[in-house]
């Protein structure tokens, strides 16, 4: 029988082929290369599902080194290689990425092709490369390879956000996205190098992995190089935080979240891809990927949880006052990724991955729904110009509503289950021995209310009431290629919660928490052997032993009830404020607070100041030093050489008697020197 895992590389290679085809042949193909992309991502989806089925059937996990580009000397130095790791986590992520990418490709037919955009081959090539990079990132088996594709993902986002590069705003947004995430990636890069220096490897899995090595050191069974005179655990914390720099940049966590709202300048399907499955998801996925490493350091976990909770809350407040549909969604993304970070930092590995999964579904749905609205509104995104679209575009409305309820965390939509689990995990570990987590939990609870409020506000303003403009009165119809992805995702947004009904686990029993079982590898036959290090129960052990995370008893149902009540409060508030035919702009009553929120707490301003007011003068001084001193030195050497050359040239006078004299003189000089030295005279 063919080992299906041998086909695994193709999951990422399909989109790569699509990229090449779209780039070189796209202009000669129907639909500008879209079909190649659809076929490729469809193929990736099928293969990914096959991987999941294979893992569920008890085979695998699969780890294979494909290519070693620097082989270390036996037992010394480092080996740099490309390899694949297909375990439950990466298989799940592969399915998510290829599914979203597939639907985004289909949707693009409606959003790009039907709107007669130019440059389609470039667009589809970008999508292909983006998908390729993310899939390859997901199944990387070591940190260096992950870093490379992490960077490639960043590059692709730059290309796609700046797709309409002739306009000022997209070009600038693309640059911003690139630079801000790059700022975080510097730390990541240093982290990769530091991990190499510490452990000599960056492998994720296996006995030789740095995760296992770090754990062994803390268990007192091994040694590692530490630097700066730090103790073992402190150094592991430093390493974790360095890598976290990249995560914060990519997953748009405070304070590096500023690029994400600007990234809305890209085409809407690209936004869907960035927010749901690629780019932004990459950061959180990375934390989950090396969770065994973070679990060793309570400090790193605490920082992750606090950043996550804080981001969830702050981003939600900013979303309250936005007037443009996609801006609201952008801040909600930042907020939701904050939840995932909160979960991971709070010891809820399954909760974090669960929320990543459900969020991918409903956020892709919301963005595609927003795209549908934007098509209908002739690319006007201001919600105050909409209204009354409910009856005019029912498919979009109902699916969008499903996504919104999921985002708001209303029972029984997908987001309810995952968000509740995030909060629950944080709570029980906070009540255990880590009270700091309760601060994150409080932020999370506040954000629940705000999330429901801005989500329902968005729905009401967009779809309910009377049409406020002529375009909203008579929107442009959308075709099947827009509706199909919406329906698929709409259904998933309703039912995806069934993956892990944690809130009612007391009723249905722990063994029916499918995602938990899946990530624990319990569906696999027997033990995972050396791969057991990647399972949930192992993480829980590590959390307890090394991070001191104990779980307190707290009824899951009670927590679910609290979360739901808070969400309903938000919904009710939104309904109260924005119901009726002619909703008023209530947020303006906030006055000065609104100004602060509209300006996003002046985050952009201070970051721009950091760049122009601080970095630029320093760079100018460095430049002066380079131009004046370094270049001056180099130039001086050159000038001196040329002058010397001129002198040497002049020795050659052309008069042969001079030559004879110089020759004789040279010889005499030699004789004198050596005669004196040798004592001949």
């Amino acid at each position: 029988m063919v080992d299906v895992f041998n086909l695994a590389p193709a999951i990422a290679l399909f989109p790569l082929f699509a990229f090449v085809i779209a780039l070189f042949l796209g202009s000669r193909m129907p639909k500008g290369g879209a079909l190649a992309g659809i076929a490729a991502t469809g193929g990736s989806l099928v293969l990914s599902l096959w991987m999941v089925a294979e893992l569920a059937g008890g085979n695998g996990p699969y780890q294979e080194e494909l290519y070693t580009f620097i082989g270390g000397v036996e037992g010394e130095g480092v080996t740099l290689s490309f390899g694949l790791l297909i375990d439950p986590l990466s298989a799940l992520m592969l399915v998510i990425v290829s599914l979203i990418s597939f639907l985004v490709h289909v949707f693009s037919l409606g959003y790009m092709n039907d709107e007669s955009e130019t440059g389609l081959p470039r667009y589809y090539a970008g999508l292909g490369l983006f998908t390729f990079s993310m899939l390859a990132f997901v199944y990387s088996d070591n940190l260096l390879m992950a870093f490379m594709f992490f960077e490639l993902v960043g590059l692709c986002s730059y290309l796609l956000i700046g797709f309409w590069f002739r306009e000022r705003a997209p070009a600038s947004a693309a640059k911003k996205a690139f630079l801000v995430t790059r700022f975080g990636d510097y730390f990541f890069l240093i982290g990769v190098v530091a991990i190499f220096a510490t452990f000599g490897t960056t492998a994720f899995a296996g006995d030789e992995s740095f995760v296992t090595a770090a754990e062994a050191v803390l268990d007192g069974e091994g040694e590692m190089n530490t630097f700066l005179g730090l103790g073992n655990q402190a150094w592991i914390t430093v390493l974790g935080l360095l890598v976290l720099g990249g995560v914060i940049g990519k997953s748009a966590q405070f304070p590096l979240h500023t690029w994400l709202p600007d990234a809305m300048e890209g085409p809407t399907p690209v936004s869907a891809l960035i927010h749901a499955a690629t780019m932004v998801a990459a950061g959180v996925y990375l934390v989950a990927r090396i969770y065994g490493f973070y679990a060793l350091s309570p400090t790193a976990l605490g920082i992750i949880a606090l950043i996550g909770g804080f981001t969830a809350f702050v981003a939600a407040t900013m979303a309250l006052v936005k007037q443009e549909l996609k801006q609201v969604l952008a801040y909600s993304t930042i907020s939701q990724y904050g939840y995932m970070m909160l979960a991971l930092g709070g010891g809820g590995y399954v909760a974090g991955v669960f929320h990543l999964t459900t969020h991918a579904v409903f956020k892709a749905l919301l963005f595609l729904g927003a795209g549908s609205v934007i098509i209908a509104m002739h690319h006007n995104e201001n919600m105050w110009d909409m209204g009354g679209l409910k009856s005019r575009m029912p498919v979009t409305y109902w699916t969008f509503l499903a996504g919104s309820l999921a985002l708001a965390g209303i029972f029984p939509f997908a987001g309810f289950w995952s968000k509740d689990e995030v909060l629950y995990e944080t709570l029980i570990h906070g009540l255990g021995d880590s009270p700091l987590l309760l601060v994150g939990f409080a932020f999370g609870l506040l954000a629940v209310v705000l999330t429901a409020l801005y989500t329902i506000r968005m729905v009401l303003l967009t779809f309910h009431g009377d049409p406020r403009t002529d375009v909203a009165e008579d929107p442009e119809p959308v075709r099947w290629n827009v509706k199909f992805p919406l329906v698929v995702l709409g259904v998933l947004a309703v039912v995806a919660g069934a993956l892990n009904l944690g809130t009612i686990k007391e009723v249905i029993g722990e063994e029916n928490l499918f995602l938990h079982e899946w990530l624990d590898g319990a569906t696999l036959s027997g033990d995972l052997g050396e791969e057991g290090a990647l399972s949930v129960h192992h993480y829980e052990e590590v959390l307890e032993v090394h991070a001191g995370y104990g779980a307190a008893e707290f009824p899951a149902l009670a927590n679910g009830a609290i979360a739901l009540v808070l969400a309903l409060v938000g919904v009710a508030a939104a309904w109260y404020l924005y119901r009726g035919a002619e909703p008023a702009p209530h947020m303006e009553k906030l006055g000065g607070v609104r100004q602060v929120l509209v300006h996003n707490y002046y985050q952009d301003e201070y970051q721009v100041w950091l760049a122009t007011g601080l970095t630029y003068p320093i760079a100018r001084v460095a430049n002066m030093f380079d131009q004046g001193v370094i270049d001056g030195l180099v130039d001086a050497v050159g000038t001196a050489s040329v002058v010397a050359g001129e002198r040497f040239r002049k020795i050659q006078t052309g008069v042969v008697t001079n030559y004879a004299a110089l020759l004789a003189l040279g010889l005499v000089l030699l004789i004198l020197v050596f005669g004196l030295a040798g004592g001949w005279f």
Partner: protein
Amino acid sequence: MATIATLPEWAALAPALTFAAAAFLLLLADAVSPEEGNPVALAGISLSGALVSLGFTVWYVVEGTGQPREGDPSDAGAIELFDATLVVDGMSLFFSAIIASVVVLVVLASYDYLQDHPYQAEYYSLVLLAATGMTMVTAANSFVTAFIAIELVSLPSYALVSSLKHNRGSVEAGLKYFLIGALSSAIFAYGISLVYVTTGSLQFDAVTSVVEGGELGGIFGLGVLMILGGIAFKIAAVPFHFWAPEAYEGAPAPISAFISSASKAAGFVLAFRVFVDVFTWEFVEPTIDWVVAIQILAIVTMTVANFAALKQEKVKRMLAYSSVGHAGYVLIALAGLTAGADHAFVLGSGMAHLLVYGFMNTGAFLYVALAEYWGVGRRIEDYNGLGAQAPFASATMTVFLFSLAGLPIGGGFVSKYYLLLASIEGEVALLAIALIVNSVVSLFYYTRVLWAIWAENPAADLEIEQYPTGLYAALALAALATVLLLPAFGPVVDLANTAAEMLV
């Protein structure tokens, strides 16, 4: 091995004898039909002579003539002739190969270059006689044979440099070359006489045995330094280099190539033999520490030549200084022979560099010959835009110059790298630094020429109509050898090391 069994011992000199025979055949052919001289036949005879000589050399090398056989000690196997005044060993064969290769290229190129030249038979026969002399130098094992062979090289060279009799530059260069040459020969002969006075012998082995006997005194030291001066003239090392820029510039370009490549190689083989084998350092050192003397020569030569080359405006003159600079590089092979070094490796690196240099330097001068053939002028800016008109030839020139600079496009990269290793092996940091700094400087002036060839716009009237076969063939061969020596450098350096092993 069969060679020794079937051929008499004097046959070991076949490479030199072939050159001599071809030279006389040329004179004979010219005597038979002096009027309507047939250029094809004359060039054909010369080329055949050079090829046969090269063939003999390669055959001997392959068969292991004059080299230690399996199991012999490393200094055994040399064939000694005429009371050991001549010797055929790995070193002599290695250098014969270099010389014969250069002669092949020069003769090929001369066929086109000499179009309408009135004294072709004389020209070719002088080249071959000089080649005979060079090949004899490689085999010289006594100061007498060495001196005679050197003179056999020098006299035809003077005539060849001024062979463009109606060109003032050519004649003037020949005269200057002759005057400086006479002075240097006098110094050389005086040095030999002083060594004879102190050792009572001229044959190398005999001198060696006296030298090993003990303290020799200042007269001997004076002799050694004067011999060094004589040899420095041959290899054009500063301050005995003054003739080189003048002679190379005035001479027909193929002759410049010939003298700067083959003649230099002959000078070096004598230097290697005399200093490594005869004036063995460990015994001579109290009297005269020639390693230090040569270190000084090497560094001064490299530096003066490369910096002087920077400001040259004529391509040929620039190449002349570059070839002086390369003499400085090769001197590392002697200057690195300090007490702790692996002598065979250091010496072998210099030999290998000379081989690569034989091809790349000859090639570069032949490109100048091509430019002279087209009549495009001698200054660097006269070469503007040649790349577009003659892309193939200009591509070969690119290979030659970059290889001379030591970029990894030809064998010059590896051989220079080995010289660097040799200077490190000898633990002479100053040599290594000078080598690197001067290579950087050289890159600048080589690039100037290439910039003109490829990047500048041609003068309005630049029009190339003829693409001479002989010159192109020579360029192609030289470029091929230069490039192939990059991957094939391993065997070459092994061969050189084996040959060097016999001496040290």
